[in-house]
């Protein structure tokens, strides 16, 4: 298993305290991301309503434009690219509503982000229990 996936012992945390450090492969949804992703997340929030989900399905790009998504955000939606959606400011809880329209569950999303097959991703989750 790669070093960054290794389970970390609790005692280590105190050596590295502080609330700003980067953590590999781990997006922090902070003010910068919240500003960047506002239109994208606002669109995803609208998907709580079934009629809006239907409107998105009818014409995805028109729906994205209605919420003011920029080129990078619209491309990420078109490509169903979760990492790109996150880079473009998407918050995972809001993106989950978009992913639901595409029929992706959280294992599908995890597999895509980690470059694994869904079965490999599930096996990795199971292995965490050993």
């Amino acid at each position, binding site marked *: 298993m790669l070093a960054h996936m290794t389970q970390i012992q609790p005692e280590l945390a105190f050596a590295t305290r502080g609330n700003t450090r980067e953590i590999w492969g781990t997006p*922090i949804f902070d003010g910068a991301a919240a500003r960047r992703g506002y239109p994208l997340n606002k669109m995803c929030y609208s998907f709580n309503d079934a009629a809006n989900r239907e409107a998105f399905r009818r014409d995805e790009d028109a729906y994205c434009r209605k919420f003011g998504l920029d080129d990078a955000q619209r491309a990420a939606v078109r490509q169903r690219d979760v990492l790109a959606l996150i880079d473009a400011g998407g918050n995972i809880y809001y993106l989950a509503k978009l992913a639901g329209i595409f029929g992706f569950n959280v294992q599908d999303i995890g597999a895509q982000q980690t470059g694994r097959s869904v079965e490999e991703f599930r096996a990795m*989750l199971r292995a965490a229990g050993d």
Partner: protein
Amino acid sequence: MARIVGGIGTSHIPAIGLAMARNQCDDPYWRPFFEAYKPVRAWVESVRPTVAVVIYNDHGLNFFLDKMPAFAVGAASEYRNADEGWGLPTLRPFPGDAALSWHLIESLSAADFDLTTCQEMLVDHGFVVPMQLLWPNAPAWPVRTIPICVNTVQHPLPTPRRCLKFGEALGRAIEAWPGDERVIVLGTGGLSHQLDGRRAGFINKPFDLYCMEKIEHEPEMLARYSIRDLVELAGTQGPELIQWLIMRGALGTAVRRVESNYHVPISNTGSGLLLLETAA
């Protein structure tokens, strides 16, 4: 006076609600998870709670990023569930207790906690799934509820230290209520999981087990972590531990572990279940 009879730490992930809706609780995947709830349900039945204070986070049903309160307290006589967008069935409304809510709001404000008060509040899976787990077949919800929603969505999040203190103030507030309510406090979410990023799927069993051990008699050990520590140790969604810390703080110093269970994986999560009873 009102009395806190105990607290329960539990996962609230939506896959649990889906499994219940699809009658999959006895499937090999789910059975070890749901079996662990049977003694907890029996305990709940035996202590006959009248009120459940539910500490959870909203995942984009009631709150959007236009306004993101650190601590939001329900102050309504009823809370509705609604469509979250990806197929979890909507459950019947939950009765509230507006008078007790306002007492808690007054007490917590007097203890220097600034709150958002919500006379209308939709409750999402973070609140609903734990209720469903404790009362899966009840024809009507047998308790009145007080939702307390914590921001674990948009950083900065409340610190673990502040959350433990919030819980302590909440406990004092509940026990100062001049009624005969029997209250349980639910700390929901966690334990380690990460849905987003290249490290998605990260679960840290040793850290989860450490948290479940320390939270009983040394919760201040967990309150020392920064949010960033919790993200590193328990994944991007791991800071939901702060909701367990609020629950734990509310119980006071004298607690007894009645049940505990840890199971990996449930969906993408290391799932903890902990029942702590307060000393009579």
